[in-house]
């Protein structure tokens, strides 16, 4: 049984699957225009941030159990330096929204996000957090957390496999490595008049 080849608009599927071409893309994005010294400092900072994203212990439903599973023996996210999950939002770098966000929970999630210290990242885990999942039509479910807080990585699945969790973390690492802390900006936007 083979999967049908999915189509992604912006990137070829083969390249999407291949880590090297993703890394190449990241390098290209990083290449232009950074000062040598500041760029190097940036690299160090990004390396530090990328390799130690501590996540908040936050789970609303099913995906939370899989999140626990990646902390445990078989999948062991400690290998990548994601080991520490902080129960206090002040000390967390990343919030993994594991599970459905309902209308009642939405202000609470927003508040948690606001309480976190910069830099902060969000991974939307599972169908519900990405876009409402099986509960899209419900009267009490938010249609994806990106309606409330900015999302860095979307991780589909119901619930996603632990390997997918790790992959999403690695995607987040890539994204963090593209950030510019000192040496300029990623993309210049024209000021709107």
């Amino acid at each position, binding site marked *: 049984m083979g999967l049908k080849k999915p189509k992604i608009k912006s990137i070829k599927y083969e390249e999407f699957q291949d880590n090297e071409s993703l890394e190449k893309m990241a390098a290209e994005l990083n290449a232009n225009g950074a000062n040598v010294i500041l760029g190097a400092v940036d690299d160090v900072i990004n390396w530090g941030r990328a390799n130690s994203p501590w996540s*908040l*212990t*936050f*789970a*609303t*439903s*099913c995906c*939370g*159990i*899989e999140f*626990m*599973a990646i902390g*445990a*023996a*078989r999948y062991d996210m400690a290998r990548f330096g994601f080991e520490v999950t902080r*129960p206090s*939002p002040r000390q967390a770098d990343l919030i993994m929204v594991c*599970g*459905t966000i*309902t*209308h*009642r*929970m*939405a*202000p*609470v999630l*927003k*508040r*948690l996000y606001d309480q976190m210290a910069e830099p902060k990242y969000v991974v939307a885990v599972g169908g519900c957090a990405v876009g409402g999942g*099986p*509960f899209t*039509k*419900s*009267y*009490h*479910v*938010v249609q994806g957390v990106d*309606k*409330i807080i900015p999302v860095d990585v979307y991780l589909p699945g*119901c*619930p996603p*496999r632990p390997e997918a969790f790790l992959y999403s973390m690695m995607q987040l690492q890539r994204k963090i490595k593209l950030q510019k802390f000192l040496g300029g900006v990623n993309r210049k936007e024209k000021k709107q008049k």
Partner: protein
Amino acid sequence: MDLKKRILEIAPETQFVEQGDIKAIVPSSSFYALAKKLKEDEDTSFDFLLSLTGMDFGDSLGVIYHLESTKYGHTCVLQTSTTNRENPELYSVCDLWKTANFNEREVYDFFGIRFINHPDMRRLFLRDEWNGYPFRKDYDMDSNPLNMTNEVTEDKTTELTIDAEGNVIEKENTLFDDKEYVINIGPQHPSTHGVLRFRTSLQGEIIKKIEPYCGYIHRGIEKMNENLTYPQTLALTDRLDYLSAHQNRHALCMLIEKALGVEIPERVQYIRTIMDELQRIDSHILFYSCLAMDMGAITPFTYGFRDREMILDIFEQTTGGRLIQNYNVVGGVQADIHPDFVNSVKKFIPYFRNILKEYHDIFTGNVIVHQRLKGVGVLSKEDAISFGTTGGTGRASGWACDTRKRKPYAMYDKVDFKEIVYTEGDSFARYMVRMDEMLESMKIIEQLIDNIPEGAYQVKMKPIIKVPEGSYFTSVESSRGEFGVFLESKGDKYPYRLKYRSTGLPLVAAVDTITKGGKIADLIAIGGTLDYVIPDIDR
């Protein structure tokens, strides 16, 4: 004893409906008296309110009660309703059965029925400023856009009482007064197992009162079901209590099969039973792991997860899913078992028997664990029945409430297993019940695994399933108690009302009683041993 005659004696206006399960329709004026009689009379003694379901009949709003007697084992279904849709009021039974407290609040939340003499008439799941009542058939789905303002927690509630002249008046009750030291545990808290919120009034470290707030993961599954066809509704059951996904789905399939009168092949029954028990072991391992983690021991947690992965592997082999399997379908199971299934299960059981000893060595035998759990959070048998805390919690209090024994289904009447009952009712008993149940589950699996008969794994069903008119109720023993499904059908391809009896809601309702006088740390241990799953409570 003829129940029908008995009911007619007390309330002569009662009518009986015999479509599906027999249901007694009682006028609202005489309902409370009837309920009181049924509960208190020696020969009926319906002391267990299994389920309380709100209903919108179109022209009237009503409530359906499923009663059961723990003494005689007989059951009855009562229905009462009011035609006043503007200002519906019914009499509360929360002084008869404590579990009715939360269930009536749920009905108020969904249907707007206000219960007279209920001490705490607030919404349970939705925000206080929510417009309308979502489960009414005429509810406008767009009337409540996402509201991002922070919730204001009121310390006052209203109670409806009847004064001397027989008029209904409103009274104000106080939850917490200003001088109390109230801390907020949750909704985002590492030990509430998800998004539950306890407002806890403390005196030093000692808990004076706990007020649970639910609804942070209320997804409206029951309402969504009303617009889904029967096979579609199955998908949502797995997401209720994801640690007994298989059993939940089993219950709904069984209900539909019962209503349709479909005969299920024996092979399917075997597979379902084995899967249920594997799921139970899986859930109890997770219980063990999480309890250990709550109490500050991370190592047992990882051990638990290490072994849980082996069960998940077995699941994955056959069903393709790890946590949520989507395996049962109406008329059978989704796919035949994997050729290696029997082998891997047989390999797993002796392995796990040994591992279980290790668990006891590392955790159960620890002095600190005994100190933390023994004599902490005692729930008496009467309270357990009154709150309807089925499952491990009830059995730890000495209430033999195992559905597999009481109302055998699938293969459970043909296998030999013991119902684990402890009498202490404390946290340690709750813990031990689950640890011992894993052994029993393994015994059941061992009896079945070698004898799975050949045959079809599925009965061919019609593409569109229409359940005949009537109301039906089935329940299974899920990992954490009696999981019931109530279906009211009008003969369509959609259910008219589908209600799940949550296994966790009675546990949360009982938290205040159990923890009273304990320390904050006890709350964590008690929460761990109660073993609730929040999405199951909020649905």
